[in-house]
């Protein structure tokens, strides 16, 4: 069953004809060759396929591309602007927040989602907020430091509460 969807990916509009069964992850990697988004477990446990869908972080392996029609998507390829890296990317580099790097795009997109969410800006809050991303190298302490630094630079260390409902 083929259908046409319109997606805004990294601020660029794509009109795509695709099989209705394609996951967002497979669309990004196999059709659009945006291979920065990684496939890990392919069943929603590891978080390495994390992208932003209308600004909210989701596992792209558990979403049909068809159900994202008319929505806006941000992947690691679209996070930075022109020649300048996103502050999270800079912080991950300067704090050595990775070893093999496979989980890194997902970690960074997840942290980017975290910045927009009303979680407490505490160490425990960051750990809880980042708990959906696994790192088998165990780079967690440096990932935590990198995210903390970005939050501090954005002067967001005060607890902020907002309502989503």
């Amino acid at each position: 069953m083929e259908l046409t969807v319109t997606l805004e990916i990294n601020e660029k509009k794509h009109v795509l004809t695709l099989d209705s069964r394609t996951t967002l992850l497979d669309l990004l990697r196999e059709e659009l060759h945006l291979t920065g988004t990684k496939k890990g477990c392919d069943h929603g446990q590891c978080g390495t396929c994390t992208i932003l869908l209308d600004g909210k972080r989701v596992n792209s392996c558990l979403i049909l591309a068809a159900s994202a029609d008319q929505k806006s998507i941000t992947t690691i390829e679209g996070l930075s602007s022109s020649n300048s890296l996103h502050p999270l990317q800079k912080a991950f580099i300067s704090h050595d927040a990775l070893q093999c790097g496979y989980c890194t795009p997902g970690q960074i997109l997840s942290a980017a989602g975290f910045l927009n969410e009303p979680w407490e800006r505490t160490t425990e809050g960051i750990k809880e907020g980042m708990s959906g991303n696994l790192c088998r190298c165990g780079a967690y302490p440096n990932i935590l430091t990198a995210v903390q630094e970005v939050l501090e630079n954005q002067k967001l260390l005060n607890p902020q509460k907002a309502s989503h409902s």
Partner: protein
Amino acid sequence: MRAALSTLKFLEAGSLSHAFKIMKTHPGIMPTAGCTDIYVSLNFGTLKVREFLNLWGLSELRKIQMKGDYLSIGSLATYTQIIHSDSVKKWIPMLIQASSSIGGMQIQNRGTLGGNIGNGSPAGDTLPVLAAAEAVVVLGSTEGIRRISFNMFYTGYRKNAMNPEELILSVEIPRIKSQQWYRKVGTRAAQAISKIVMAAVLSKDPEEQQDPRRIRIAFGSLAPTVIRAFRTETALAENGNITEAQKTLLSEIQPIDDIRSTALYRQTVAANLLAEWWGKVSPRSLIKS
């Protein structure tokens, strides 16, 4: 996705009445919300269904609102919505605890309360909360709307009292004038499916002290479905003896050995959780403190 997808078909619901019609005209079709469970089963090849109806766009099923003396939570409300809802925080905080314990934020942004109910896993994290809260499930189809008590909803392992063409529309939660308690025991703090999960309420309202329903206890992962420990509730209401109540509890649960834990571990932890909760809330412990 590793499953053979060549035979799968996905339909899109444009409106609620459209969804009702599709459910009626496509026997065996499976309604889907955030797909956080379905895609996993598809990948493992354990799901035999080949036709799916995507309900995600039906925003009218995503509302959380007070309706008179109960809280109505739409079936498509995500865990993230529930966690950040002031109404849920005020009315049924143990549902926030349960929702926060599910997966990572990526899952909480997609997983829904209706999906947890429809999936019907005995380990479903919100299900003991709904059982202890005596929630009501609102179902709809082309035939109209009907309500069913959550405690009558499951009829066996992943089986429920819904007609094949019905959809879950919302859950209605009556006011609980009680202390609420929730505990999930998993292999690790985050990203774990429960080995055992418990929700309980104990009313401190003087007007309800003669009401045997003032104590309500529910468990997940201890039987083919989520269960209310009715006999344990009665035992505690009668004399408050925790040792007797623990024995009663062990006689009314049927834990099994499976991939996540053993029957013996679950029996031991169930009895311990009961004692931990009762030690905190029982009238005797309050007098001591």
